[in-house]
């Protein structure tokens, strides 16, 4: 697994500022792996080109979901690793944290995945991700000029997102 900025000496995370953006970047994928949206507010190291970066992110989450579902100690099924699961079935992971960032994840049963990468001291973002999903419904799904499955090109959506994310702790 490739970490962004993986050197031996871990750099200190940037101190969270009261105003200004605490989020680093955000991805939205649909169930076919198409990256519908990629927003970047604060990212200093870029190791891959955009296409590969998206594929890596999607692949990472796909595998993590599968792994967490199979390792679930409370689940009754004994599926094999690699057996395809229905979207949203089984347990779902919602975040992981490293010393430099926290990645929060939400997947809807329709396969829309929202990923938000923030500074590591961020709290539980599940409600925020739900709110972002609602924003997606209002500004993108209900937009008659948007074709489902295509990357999102909506200034209004981007603006509202930026405003909302800026307000996250």
């Amino acid at each position: 697994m490739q970490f962004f900025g993986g050197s031996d000496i871990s750099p200190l995370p940037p101190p969270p500022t009261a105003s200004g953006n605490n989020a680093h970047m955000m991805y939205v994928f649909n169930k076919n792996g198409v990256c519908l949206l990629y927003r970047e507010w604060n990212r200093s190291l870029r190791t891959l080109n955009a296409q590969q970066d998206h594929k890596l992110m999607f692949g990472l989450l796909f595998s993590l979901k599968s792994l967490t579902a199979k390792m679930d100690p409370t689940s009754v099924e004994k599926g094999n690793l690699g057996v395809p699961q229905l979207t949203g079935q089984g347990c779902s992971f919602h975040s992981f944290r490293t010393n430099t960032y926290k990645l929060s994840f939400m997947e809807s049963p329709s396969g829309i995945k929202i990923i938000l990468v923030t500074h590591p001291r961020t709290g539980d973002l599940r409600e925020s991700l739900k709110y972002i999903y609602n924003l997606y419904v209002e500004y993108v799904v209900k937009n008659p000029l948007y074709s489902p499955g295509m990357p999102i090109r909506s200034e209004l959506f981007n603006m509202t997102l930026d405003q909302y994310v800026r307000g996250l702790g």
Partner: protein
Amino acid sequence: MAPAAPRSGDAIFANVERVNAELFTLTYGAIVRQLLTDLEEVEEVNKQLDQMGYNIGIRLIDEFLAKSNVSRCVDFKETAEAIAKVGFKMFLGVTASVTNWDADGTSCSLVLEDNPLVDFVELPDTCQGLYYCNILSGVVRGALEMVSMKTEVTWIRDMLRGDDAYELQVKLLKQVPEEYPYKDDE
């Protein structure tokens, strides 16, 4: 933080923006009327209404999931209940009842006593083959396809054709699990 419980259809219906029921009925009637004029063949109109419903359904599912907070349904029975009690209530303001389960639990009927689309409507003799509410069958089919269920949705009873209620049969053909979309060597 525990995840929020799914909200009931009534609660959501009270919170969403609503339009005037008559406006809705008359607009739908105008659409069907126009389709009949443009396409002339009743079968073509049925197909077109189904297609329009499908295009609506694939978007409607996200709004449904976002507003109602339902998590993944464990089986098709739960899905049918969710559509009838929460979905129909949220979008049409009426609830349906779920009946006629077959032996494997893959086919059921949604029965609507009250249908806001058909107020004031009468089918003339020239359009006896028309499924006036076919848009609903498209919507259900489209929405379920986005949650990995391939279904076949047909009208069994239709009040405009003389039956006593609206009955929509939903048959689950198969569940399509998620696949890794990229080829491994790319």
